[in-house]
């Protein structure tokens, strides 16, 4: 038995080309299979349009679709940023003390399980019909914020106890403790939460528009509803495609952020050499 290694260079992740080959292949197979199935089975385009048709529609209606995407994206990103900030802040606040935790967690859970559709009218009435975007933002935020809150709390509580002792001994202030110990220590959890929330804020923006969208809210949800009710199913799927593409993009960005932040020290992103 022998293990001879000739490469003098340290182990590096594969080249960019090879990295993306398989995913691209997977995508091709997925779309190809869909196209074939739709054609072979003769599925009518009102039920499940072929990818080619969706793509065609996408190109044809790109102007209005991209405009709708722009609207949804704005709500999504605002809600996501809001969810990140509030989720981390609340997660920190909730883990300061077991009592506080016990007292306030139930309300957070309550906010999570209350269906947006039920409180949408209240929010719309509250912010006024003239500020529908604000209602949408609040609703989308409601959908997105819990995972960050929950994961931040879990992360805060998982901080290494030995290090925590070091900070105790140095008489670290609350803020310094948060900034230099808890935040970096909880980062793997927070980022996992952020990846969940990034998707949820997309959904949140769409659902918010479904339930509270009115004249001035013309995002992808609107395209989906309207295309559905006009039986323009390829257009609906084009909107869904854009939505997915957008969601995957945010998710990829979040993954890249995660990699950048954890690459040098955390197991989950380390390029381990043994």
């Amino acid at each position, binding site marked *: 038995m022998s293990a001879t290694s000739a490469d003098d260079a340290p182990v590096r992740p594969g080249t960019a080309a090879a990295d993306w080959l398989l995913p691209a292949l997977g995508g091709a197979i997925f779309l190809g299979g869909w196209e074939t199935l739709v054609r072979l089975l003769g599925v009518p385009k009102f039920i499940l349009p072929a990818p080619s048709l969706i793509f065609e529609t996408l190109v044809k209606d790109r102007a209005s679709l991209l405009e709708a995407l722009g609207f949804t994206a704005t709500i999504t990103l605002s809600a996501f940023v809001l969810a990140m900030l509030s989720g981390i802040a609340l997660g920190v606040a909730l883990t300061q003390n077991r009592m506080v935790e016990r007292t306030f967690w139930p309300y957070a859970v309550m906010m999570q399980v209350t269906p947006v559709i039920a409180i949408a009218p209240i929010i719309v009435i509250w912010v006024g019909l003239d500020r529908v975007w604000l209602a949408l933002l609040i609703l989308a935020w409601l959908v997105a914020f819990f995972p960050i809150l929950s994961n931040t709390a879990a992360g805060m509580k998982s901080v290494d106890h030995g290090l925590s002792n070091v900070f105790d001994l140095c008489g670290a202030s609350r803020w310094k403790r948060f900034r230099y110990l808890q935040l970096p220590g909880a980062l793997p959890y927070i980022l996992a939460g952020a990846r969940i929330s990034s998707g949820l804020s997309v959904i949140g923006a769409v659902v918010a528009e*479904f339930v509270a969208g009115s004249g001035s809210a013309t995002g992808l949800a609107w395209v989906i509803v309207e295309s559905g009710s006009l039986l323009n199913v390829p257009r609906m799927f084009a909107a869904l495609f854009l939505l997915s593409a957008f969601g995957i993009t945010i998710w990829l960005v979040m993954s890249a952020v995660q990699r950048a932040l954890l690459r040098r020290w955390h197991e989950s992103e380390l390029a381990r050499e043994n």
Partner: protein
Amino acid sequence: QERITFVTSWRAQAEQGGYYQAQEKGFYRECGLNLVIRQGGPSIDPVQLLVGGAVEIGLSSVSDATFHMHQAGFPARAVMAAFQRTPQILMAHPDSGIERFEDMRGKPIMIAGSARNAYWPFLRSRYGFTDSQIRNYTGQMAAFLADRNAIQQGLITNEPNLATQALGRPPKVFMIADSGYGTYGSVVVVGQALIDRRPELVQCFVQASVRGWTDYLADPTAGFAAVARENPQNTPEIMRNAFDSLRRANIVETEETRIHGVGTMSDARWQSHYEALAREGIVQPGFDWRRAYTLRFLNRATGS
């Protein structure tokens, strides 16, 4: 000048053309009304917004709304109704063998939640349907198109056209109005408070709306333009189709309107509808049904 907000029951479409025509031609402004029309949406409930004070005037697709509002403790009145009968329909596949409402017994029927407290109880008691037939409908026709036994709700102005395109043949269409559900449609609801405080504004709204609808029926060009501007998904064909359907099915114009003008309502219709609702247990009995509407603005509007 006080700004009044009027929220419609759905995104801008030809079915609300009369109001848009009035706005487009300045009829509201003429009589001193600073009106903003807000489009509704899938889950925008004008009644809830009205009750919550977010809007002053709401458009409801059925008469029942004002009954419910009173029973919840919010006094409001219907002041006009652009549709003399509801354009709601059920439709079935051309080759489903369904010829009458009775034939739908035992088959899945896709209707939206709002219908379950409106026309559904009538259909149920009149044709022997059961609740287990209900399937939720969220505006997506795919499930209907895929299943030849499926039945779904719709509006005479929209879904039959779409189904015809998709199926290649016109579907079987059944008007809800034919089932004995005697509601008005496109009902304008105003809070009692506004009626008491600024009756002249309500008067203006009704008058201008009736004028708008009459004008729209004669030539919808201005209304179409306004609707398309609000909601660009409305192509000329879609609007034209809807417009023609409204006329063909005698939704806006009937014998009554020929006498009393578009938008008219009558005590008799309100009474019989109330009694029908009470019979089905949808509204509590012993309620003064007259409080749910008023004809005072209409009579003056038509000048009769």
